[in-house]
Each structure stands twice: as structure tokens, then as C-alpha cells.
């Protein structure tokens, strides 16, 4: 019926369709859902609870000034690491759920067939929904990014941490968006769409870690080859490598593919991994667009 190519996806972005009617509708509906506010409140509450749990025991320690300072530095490092991880995991989870459900909700509510009788193309619909979710998750990403930038500016992080954070967010976001749309366009029920998406991401990243480790042992390679792959490919490994190589006054390196890599070295691996994620994401997105109209009923 409609030949949708990868080129259409790019044209869609180029034609200033990002703030179309569907985008407005998505934001308007989201702003009226009480559960959205409850989730945001819960999110902030959890973050505060985490900081309190780490910080309160530190300040309650009755030790000397030097010891106290050392404890506080350690606590600050834990909090920094925790915030980066917490934000990163939270955002990916929210994005994965939102992107999986945004299409299946339309299918389940029988609104998609009506939407598809408008002149909006399948690609328009998917891109608008993607941008809508991006806009809704945007503040959390910006918060995470601003946090990293602020610490880099204060020379607590290596400036390369900004690149690391950007690469991690974009890689995981692209991958989860594409797989979310893929499953969302195939499943009528929202839970049916979310479960395989989370299972795929979690499974892939766990399996990737195990395979990397097993391959290292099996091939007799240095054990750190497996860890290196995890650092380069798995988002949570990337987050660990980011914190390890950009904190501690920039002196720390991680062993990656036989060499001690610093922040810049890890950024190269992360960028290569991002290119891989981008390719896989394009395949999933293309499959999602192809399946979109076929699965409307």
C-alpha cells in the first residue's frame, strides 16, 4: 500500500513535522493524566531517599576532621555514581515503557484505524509519537545532562564525561525507541508490548555480558576482554566506565582490550558502539513502520 523507506524517516525529520498535530495531542493527553504526576513525584522521592540514605550515615560519623572529609568525599562519589545510574536506568525504563505503549494504546483504544484514515503517513505518526515521548522524557535527560555538565565545569568530572553521557543516552534511547515501536506495532495490549521490549533490552544486555565473558574464557583470551566488551557495549557498563574514567581527578583508567583506557579512549569505544546501536535501531524502526498498517486491526 505504502512504500515506506528509511529515506521517508529522514524526510519526515527534515520537513518540520516534529511539532505536528499528533505531537500536540500526545502532550495534551499526557498532561491530563494524573498517573504522570504521581510517577514524577515517586521518581523525585526515590532519588531523594537514595541521597539521604548515603549522606545521613556519613555526616553522623563521629570521627576526626580528616576522616570525616574522606568519608564525605567517598559519599559524594557514591551519590554522583548513584545519581548518574539512577537517572540513566529510570529514564531508559520510562522511555522504553512509553515508546512501547504509545502505539499499542492507540490500537487497543481503536483510535489508530481512525488516525490512519487521515493524510498523516505511518512515518508521520511514528515520528510524532517518538518526539512526543522525547519531549515528555526530555526534562529528566536534561537534568542528567546538566548534572554531568555542571560537574565537568566544576572540574569534578573530566570534560569527556559530557560526551560519555550523550553517547550513552542516545545509544540506549535509539535502541529502546526502535524496539519499543517494533513491539508496540505488533501488540494490541500495552503489557504485551512493554514486556518483550524490556525483556529484549535486559536479556540482550545480560546475554551480551555473559557471552562476552564466556567468549573471553573460551577463546583463552585475557579475562578483561569480556569486561572490555561490556564497558563498550552494555549501557550500564558504559555508565560504570564513564564514572570510573572521569571521576577521581581524571587519573583512573579502565582496562579495555588490553590497554588502560582513559576517558577519551572509552569515548571512542562508546561512539563505535553507538554506531552499531544506530544500525540495529534503523532495522527495528523500518520493520515497525512496515508492520504498522498491517497490524492495525
Amino acid at each position: 500500500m505504502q512504500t515506506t523507506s528509511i529515506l521517508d524517516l529522514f524526510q519526515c525529520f527534515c520537513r518540520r513535522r516534529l511539532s505536528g498535530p499528533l505531537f500536540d495531542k500526545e502532550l495534551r493527553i499526557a498532561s491530563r493524566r494524573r498517573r504522570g504526576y504521581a510517577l514524577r513525584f515517586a521518581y523525585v522521592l526515590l532519588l531523594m531517599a537514595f541521597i539521604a540514605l548515603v549522606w545521613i550515615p556519613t555526616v553522623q560519623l563521629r570521627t576526626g576532621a580528616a576522616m570525616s572529609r574522606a568519608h564525605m568525599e567517598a559519599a559524594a562519589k557514591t551519590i554522583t555514581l548513584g545519581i548518574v545510574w539512577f537517572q540513566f536506568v529510570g529514564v531508559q525504563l520510562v522511555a522504553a515503557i512509553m515508546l512501547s505503549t504509545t502505539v499499542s494504546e492507540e490500537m487497543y483504544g481503536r483510535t489508530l484505524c481512525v488516525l490512519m484514515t487521515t493524510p498523516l503517513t505511518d512515518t508521520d505518526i511514528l515520528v510524532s509519537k517518538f518526539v512526543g515521548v522525547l519531549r515528555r522524557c526530555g526534562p529528566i535527560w536534561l537534568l542528567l545532562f546538566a548534572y554531568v555538565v555542571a560537574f565537568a565545569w566544576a572540574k569534578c568530572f573530566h570534560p569527556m564525561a559530557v560526551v560519555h553521557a550523550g553517547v550513552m543516552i542516545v545509544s540506549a534511547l535509539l535502541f529502546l525507541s526502535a524496539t519499543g515501536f517494533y513491539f508496540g506495532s505488533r501488540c494490541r495490549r500495552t503489557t504485551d508490548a512493554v514486556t518483550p521490549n524490556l525483556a529484549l533490552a535486559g536479556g540482550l544486555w545480560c546475554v551480551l555480558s555473559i557471552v562476552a565473558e564466556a567468549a573471553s574464557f573460551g577463546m583463552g583470551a585475557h579475562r578483561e576482554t569480556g569486561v572490555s566488551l561490556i564497558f563498550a557495549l552494555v549501557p550500564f557498563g558504559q555508565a560504570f566506565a564513564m564514572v570510573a574514567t572521569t571521576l577521581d581527578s581524571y587519573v583512573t583508567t579502565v582496562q579495555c582490550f588490553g590497554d588502560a583506557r582513559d576517558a577519551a579512549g572509552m569515548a571512542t569505544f562508546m561512539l563505535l558502539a553507538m554506531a552499531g546501536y544506530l544500525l540495529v535501531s534503523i532495522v527495528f524502526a523500518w520493520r515497525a513502520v512496515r508492520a504498522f498498517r498491517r497490524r492495525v486491526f
Partner: protein
Amino acid sequence: MIETKKLTKNFGNLVAVSNLDLYIGAGDIFGFIGPNGAGKTTTMRILVTLLEPTSGEAFIDGLKVSKKGKEVRRRVGYMPDFMGVYDDLKVFEYLEFFAAAFGIEYKKRQAIVDGVLELTDLVSKRSAPVDSLSRGMQQRLGLARVLIHDPKVLILDEPASGLDPRARIEMRELLRELKRMGKTIMISSHILSELEEICDRIGIIERGQFVFSGTMEEIRPRLGIQSKVRVKVLGDPARAVEMLSALPQVQKVEPVDDYLSVTFCEGQETDGIVARTLVNGGLDLVYLHPEQLKLDDAFLQLTKGIVH
């Protein structure tokens, strides 16, 4: 305005629509009738670009549906048999969203939304949440949505399903108004008697193929059904039976309850002959009414109720 040529749609081994040839002229109301699973909804979905035909062609306003999907969608308003609505939107927001989706300029949107709300009698519900509307109102909102881009063609899949009698009458009036506006309407329904009153032509489909397509007048000879009238006279009905039975145009006269049912011979001119004969014979005629072939009867006779 709407045309299909050898339209076929298969779902695996299941043939939903088979070599369907259909033509609906501009400004016509076409009633699409058939048992469940006959292929009505599939045909409509192909026409509105939601499904791709397995073979054959479909055209809307001269545009090939499978090639010019976007242009076709601009010309067609489609109302599905079960339509979901966005619960978190208000009525005017819902319509404005679709107006924007059809590319209507921002400045013109409000006037157009107000216009369709007035046409569908939903002005009082303008700011009401969509999910607070009754079923009948939601159907009217669906019709308002369909009209928002002023399409030439309306394809309505059972628009009166689930409505109470009052809402059905209102829907029928609305469809008549749309016909007056010059819209070409293709409508399917199980409430066959309603289609009989508003449709110019009907198509009865079974197992993906038309078993009849034409006007109500054309369906009568197809079924071999002769014209009948109901007559009631003052005085002796036996005399009326005697007088009418003597007419060469009349095949038989039989008393049914308190009136007489007069069946004419096939192809005979029957206008006025019964009344003339009875009055000239000195009988007072109090009731004379042609027995209409009901669409439900035609539907039952034409379809065997076989659903694949």
C-alpha cells in the same frame, strides 16, 4: 465516485472479498448489506486505504486507492463500526486535532469545528470531555469528525449500531441532510429497514460477492415478487373479492384479517385499477395501500445465511 473492479481480498485461505465489482455514482447513498463476515467491512477498509487488496482495483473519485492513498484519504471520511475516542480530550479539542491532521489552517479550524458541531447538534457539548458523551453522542461526534475536512465521499460502517430508537432517527435525519449537501455515501448496516428509507441503491453481499446490486425497484423482479396491494372496503368484502378476481390483471385476491390482499399478475400495469373497479362497483373504499417489499425480506430471500 466509488468504483471497484474485480476486487479480491484474501486472509490466508479465507476469501473475504471475491471479484467484487461496484459502482456508486456521485451524490448517491448506497446501502451495503450482508450477514456478518460477508465482506462489507473488508471492502470498506480497502476503500479507505486501511487494507491492501489481494487483487483487483478500487477507485475513489478516479484515484486508485492502492497508489494514491494520501489523496484518497483527503477525499474520504470513514467511520468504523466501532470507533475509539481519546478519552482525555474535550469535544472541540478532538475535532481540532483531526482538523489539524487534515491540514486545515489554524485560523479556519474553529469556524469549521463550530460548523460540524452545529450540524451534528453537539454545540452544547463543545467543552465536554469525550468520554462523558453517551453512545449516541459519540456516534454523532464520529460523524462530525468524518465531516471535518468536507470530504466528497463518506464511508460509514454501521453508524447506527448500538443506538437507541431516538438516536437512530436522528442519525437518519443527519444522513438525509448530508445527501442534500451532495455527499456520496456508502453505508452498511444490519438495521435493514433504515437503509431502505434513505438509500438510492443497495448492494447485498454474501461470501464476498454481490448477490444483488441495484435499486429497490430492480430487486422486485429479481426475486420474482409480484406487486401486491392491501384493500379495505365498507360493506360486503365477498363482493369486493368477486369484482377484483374478475380483473385480468389480478392473479388472486385473499382475505387477510380485516382487509384483502390483492396480488397482480407479473408485468401488469396496476395503477389505479383496484380503486376504480371498487368505486365503479358501488363499494366504499376506506383503505388502499401498496405492500412494499421490505429490505429485510429481500435480504432473507437473497442470502442463505451462509457465512464462511
